[in-house]
């Protein structure tokens, strides 16, 4: 009898533990964790490997053509009937055998470049259509200013239409010797164009606007207007001469650079002349050792982080987007954090706790749940079209009908995202304030301190880490938000940066009215709006990696600050 009862307990306990259901709940957690880890691994792998210089493979096809490039992916597939119909009987039989054995045939995607010759950046090559492949010693990868990458063999080096070096080795070494100086001249020329000529243009525009302003304020026939016109005419003459001299300098540099050219031969035997100045980076891929490859890899990352984009954003760097994201986020934080803290202080310390405050608190919490696109709509309608347009009519009437502030711009994006992140700051600050023990406040009051003294000396210092956490989380949210920015000022390509270096104090000049580039919007634009999304794919991954890295770092900082804060409280509770 005793024995039976015990065994009964054992048997039922197995059922009561409901192990299968526990495993289902555990499975849900496993899936969630696997998804996030899988996503991270995918982005890190794709984003991290984009810039790694691969070997350049030359694949000859059975139809006599050759392609050369880097292998970007491999897959197994079963060719459709129309593909099979196009094959010779012999090949078709072979393909069928392979399919029967392996379940499909392998094909590889070759990044074959040479877009100006072939009209495509990538080529699928079926294994059954390849007759041979090799790693040619002199296969050179050329990253150009336009048309994307070029793959070919150096044939000759040309100075002023005269061949000065023949053969890959000689041509290559001659090219190497002049490339740095050519690029340096190019940089100088670019600086002249954006710096000196840009400044002259800006002055010309300023003169025109001053004239228009005089016209608006005093009328065309007035003395002030005539005075302004005389001044403007004088200035324009002087500016024109300065413009000419700057342009001459640019022309001289261009002429010098145009002398050097490199003649290439593609895998197909076609010849192609590439001016040395158009070559951003070139390397003989199959000759590189590990260290040199790392050098190419790092130099590409450096270009990515420090240069402006080229080729409809699919090449070059994302420097303007980084600057745009950072400046916009900082301005946003400067706007959102003080007001968020004030609101939290008001709610927690000053307002009489009652139904009104709880309604307000619910409203603030609610605001955190309002879709970001709604903030974008509000930002566009209110900040750009109402506030911005009023600013324009009051202060920038001479520029109308071209809007200055009456359109999307950095300042309005920052305002919009500031509003969006406000609840994050308020909630975090309120929690931090609530966590300051009551005993400390009472102690302070007992010593005769006033309310503001208590807040400033006792409450705020203790709540500061919590406020910092809120700020960092707000920044992380703001940096990753894209939907509202699409409406209030993020653009695919901004001609000018929102901050500009100045030769005079304060050395950095912020242009809050300008549209800006943003990393998140860059991802959307590259992946979806790009003309050639295939070519832009690698850039999207690296941009994604960069954005995620920024956000993860911000989050980890926030978590770290929070942990520190918790520990401090744990220590200071007694």
């Amino acid at each position, binding site marked *: 009898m005793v024995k039976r009862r015990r065994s009964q307990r054992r048997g039922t306990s197995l059922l009561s533990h409901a192990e299968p259901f526990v495993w289902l709940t555990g499975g849900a957690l496993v899936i969630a964790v696997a998804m996030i880890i899988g996503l991270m691994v995918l982005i890190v792998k794709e984003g991290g490997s984009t810039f790694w210089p691969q070997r350049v493979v030359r694949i000859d096809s059975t139809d006599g053509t050759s392609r050369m490039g880097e292998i970007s992916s491999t897959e197994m597939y079963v060719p459709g009937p129309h593909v099979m119909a196009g094959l010779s009987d012999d090949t078709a039989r072979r393909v069928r055998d392979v399919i029967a054995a392996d379940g499909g045939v392998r094909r590889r995607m070759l990044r074959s470049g040479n877009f100006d010759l072939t009209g495509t950046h990538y080529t699928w090559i079926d294994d059954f259509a390849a007759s041979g492949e090799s790693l040619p010693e002199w296969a050179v990868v050329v990253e150009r200013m336009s048309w994307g990458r070029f793959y070919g063999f150096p044939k000759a080096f040309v100075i002023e239409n005269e061949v000065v070096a023949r053969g890959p080795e000689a041509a290559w070494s001659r090219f190497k010797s002049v490339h740095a100086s050519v690029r340096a001249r190019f940089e100088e020329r670019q600086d002249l164009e954006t710096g000196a000529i840009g400044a002259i243009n800006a002055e010309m525009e300023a003169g025109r606007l001053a004239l228009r302003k005089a016209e608006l304020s005093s009328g065309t026939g007035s003395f002030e207007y005539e005075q302004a016109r005389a001044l403007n005419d004088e200035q324009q003459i002087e500016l024109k001469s300065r413009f000419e001299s700057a342009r001459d300098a640019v022309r001289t540099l261009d002429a010098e650079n145009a002398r050097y050219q490199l003649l290439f031969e593609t895998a197909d035997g076609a010849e192609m002349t590439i001016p040395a100045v158009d070559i951003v980076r070139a390397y003989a891929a199959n000759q590189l050792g590990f260290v040199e490859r790392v050098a190419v890899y790092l130099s590409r990352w450096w270009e990515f982080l420090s240069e402006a984009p080229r080729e409809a954003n699919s090449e070059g760097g994302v420097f303007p987007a980084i600057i745009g994201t950072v400046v916009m986020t900082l301005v946003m934080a400067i706007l959102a954090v003080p007001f968020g803290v004030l609101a939290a202080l008001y709610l927690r310390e000053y307002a009489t706790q009652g139904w009104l405050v709880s309604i307000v608190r619910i409203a603030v919490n609610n605001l955190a749940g309002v879709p970001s*696109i709604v903030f974008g709509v509000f930002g566009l309608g209110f900040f750009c079209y109402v506030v911005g347009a009023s600013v324009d009519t009051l202060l920038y009437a001479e520029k109308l009908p071209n809007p200055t502030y009456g359109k999307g711009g950095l300042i309005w994006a920052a305002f919009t995202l500031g509003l969006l992140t406000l609840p994050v700051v308020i909630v975090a600050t309120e929690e931090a304030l609530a966590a300051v023990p009551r005993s400390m406040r009472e102690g302070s009051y007992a010593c005769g301190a006033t309310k503001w003294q208590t807040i400033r000396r006792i409450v705020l210092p203790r709540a500061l880490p919590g406020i910092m956490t809120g700020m960092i989380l707000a920044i992380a949210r703001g940096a990753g938000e*894209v939907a509202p920015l699409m409406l209030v000022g993020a653009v695919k390509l901004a001609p000018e940066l929102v901050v500009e270096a100045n030769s005079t104090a304060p050395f950095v000049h912020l242009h809050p009215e300008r549209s800006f580039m943003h990393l998140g919007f860059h991802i959307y634009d590259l992946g979806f709006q790009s003309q050639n999304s295939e070519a832009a794919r690698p850039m999207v991954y690296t941009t994604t990696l960069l954005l995620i890295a920024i956000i993860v770092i911000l989050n980890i900082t926030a978590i770290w600050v929070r942990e520190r804060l918790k520990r401090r409280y744990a220590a200071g509770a007694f």
Partner: protein
Amino acid sequence: MRLAEAVARLCISIGGAGTIAAVALIFVFLVWVVVPLFGGAGHELRNQKTVASAAASAPPFAFGVDEYRDLGFVLKHDGTLVTWRTDDGKVLDTRALFTVPRLNSVSTRSPDGDLAFGFDDGSVRLGRISFHATYADMTSRPELAEVTADRPVIVAGGQLARRTQEGQLRLTGIAVSIDEPVQLGLTAPITALDVSSHRDTTKVVALDARGEIAAARIETRENLMTGEVTVDIRSHSVPLRPRATGPPTRLFLTGPGDVLLVTWDDGILQRHDLRDVEAPRLAEEFDLVDGEGSLTAAAFLIGKTTLITGDSRGRVRGWFGTKPAEAETPDGIRFVRTHDLDAEGPAVTALASSSRSRVVSAGFADGSVKTFHVTSHKLLIDTAVEGGEPITALVIAPKEDGLMAQAGAHVAAWNITLEHPEASLSALFAPVWYEGYDQPRHVWQSTGGTDDFEPKLGFWPLIFGTLKATFYSMLFGAPLAILAAIFTSEFLHKRLKGPLKSITEMMASLPSVVLGFIAAIVIAPYVQGLVSTVLALFFTVPCAFLLGAHLWQLLPQNAYVRLSGAPRFVAMGACLPVGVLAAFAVGPFFERTFFDGDIIAWLAGAQGDSVGGWLLLLIPVTALLYVFAASRFVGPWLRSMSAGWNRPQAARFEFARFGASLVLVFATALGAAHVLDGVGFDPRGGVFDTYVQRNALIVGFVMGFAIIPIVYTLAEDALSSVPAHLRLASLGAGATLWQTAMRVVVPTAMSGLFSAVMIGLGRAVGETMIVLMATGNTPIMSWSVFDGFRTLSANIAVELPEAVRDSTHYRALFLAALCLFALTFVLNTFAELVRQRFRKRAYQL
């Protein structure tokens, strides 16, 4: 000190209150932009003048006003064209256009001023009566010097000179050009005619007093070499179906000139197919007035497709051709009454349609004038001429900023502002019968290629898309998040809790643009190649976890207890790859067996029976039924039966039972699927439909991914804040962890879990980037998992940058934003209230 105190209090209060005011501002501003959408149109009587020489008792042949509303003209029955100033009614110009042969009828005037004249000798002339405006420099025309800012309008040489606000001088006059007469083979006086131009071809139809109709195609070709213009006229007679009531009175030719509408005064309309002018044929005949009263006015709307009719009983109605499947007409088109604009009242005496939108004005026998938007049925203006004489002619100004009516010798002019005539609550949210559709529908199509394109602003497809995205993502995300939260709070090893929570929180901060990009560029193409495998995942992965659990039970008691921490979680992790691998094996097998080897072709409806589809739907249902039945009916019996067994025995039995139940569930589902297939039901066209690469499955998965962290975190918080003493009491009373979790912790935390789901719901409703990137953004209404959709938020993101400020479209998009705002606000407030209640309760416990 006291000052500092006061200043601080003031600053903080102002800052705090200001912040909160900013929140309110969002709502107020959105409402402020949206409200004009539903406002009516405005109108004010500008003047009413007597223009004696233009007076007519019958409707004149033509009546018009220029773009700037400076001049009006009327073409009288005696062939004279009278032009007058609208501001003071003084006649500017009177000219006799035709004397012999006598003008007998005139077609309606096109927006460009083109019309056709019919004469009493049976000839027809095409022509144009238009206004021409030229701008002159003040200084170059000394005779215009008397125009000053005080006296901005003068008459000079048959033209009106007006000083514009920009300080320029605008000269407006009337211009008439008339082509040579054309004979269409009719000899009796022309009583009605109409003309339509489409590219180089002009079609003219004319009706003579004997009731004969001729249709002519006039082609104008210009020789590129010589510049010589040749006109080619081919005229054919249109045979009417004879009627006892006499000849018809009105003729209408649609925009492309392929349909001829002939009406009699008793309301009968004959529609003739005129696509082939040489062989016209009668398509249908029907009654426009339901046998009551008579037809008194008719006019085409812009685009010349919708016919507006007015009758002696005061009814104003719209008609156009639809293509219903059951149409018995020879050309498959049937004219139907699609719009009832006005109820009965005084007889309609004049109709005028706008040249820029689908607005129509009707004048009545009692002198009243009403203006409607045809598609939205909105009554925009309801006014009347002073004196109450019947309206003889009406015109809406070309810019839709004015309305002019002739009543006897009086001409009344109104300033009107239509604002947003096409928008109304019913036009935005109820099905609307758009031109060319078979029935009223919900359509969102805000922009189109042609000038006479009508924006269709039906919100339902977008709301539907939003709900669909939310539904599928919650279907995937919510259970996963809640289950994961239960596991984390109740079963997970303490040391694993921290890092796992951090990882999931990290997931929350992933920008949604990244998720959208991954969904569209990586997942969508990948899934398209592996549809069957992905579908199989939904079955194999849970099975793998269940299998793992049953194997785990087979462990000896000691090992079972010892390994119940981290090792068990690792073992769970190992089940996932097993499930995935199994899917790769099972998926293609099922595809071959049930979907004829190609599930995408099967979904397109090209092949196979519906068993496979039903199986997909029924397996989860039968599995749930089985679990319910097993725990309810089999469980107690099993418990008593297994009483005598020891642990390994029970575990082995459970393992066998698991295998048997898998087979049982599958067999039941298969049987039911065959039955449903035999009955003839097919899930295709409903839950399943043609595969689109960016579809609800992808969005459900990725957006589920996006809401998991928030739901998980909130749910975990709710579960963790259940007081420990409840848990301990339950465990102390001998309950297992599972029993404690299910019967004590979850019920206590239920409201917290609920609010977590609600907040996740709010997130899913407003998510923009993922749906923008991972759906095809097609505003269609289909429940299919494999179809795309467009949500409110994505719609705003796509269209707002292009919308013109303050246009109807712009305001409609603000309304979309307001909808989202209101929806999430309600969801969140509700969730917040529930959560606060829960907190209070948990605190009391």
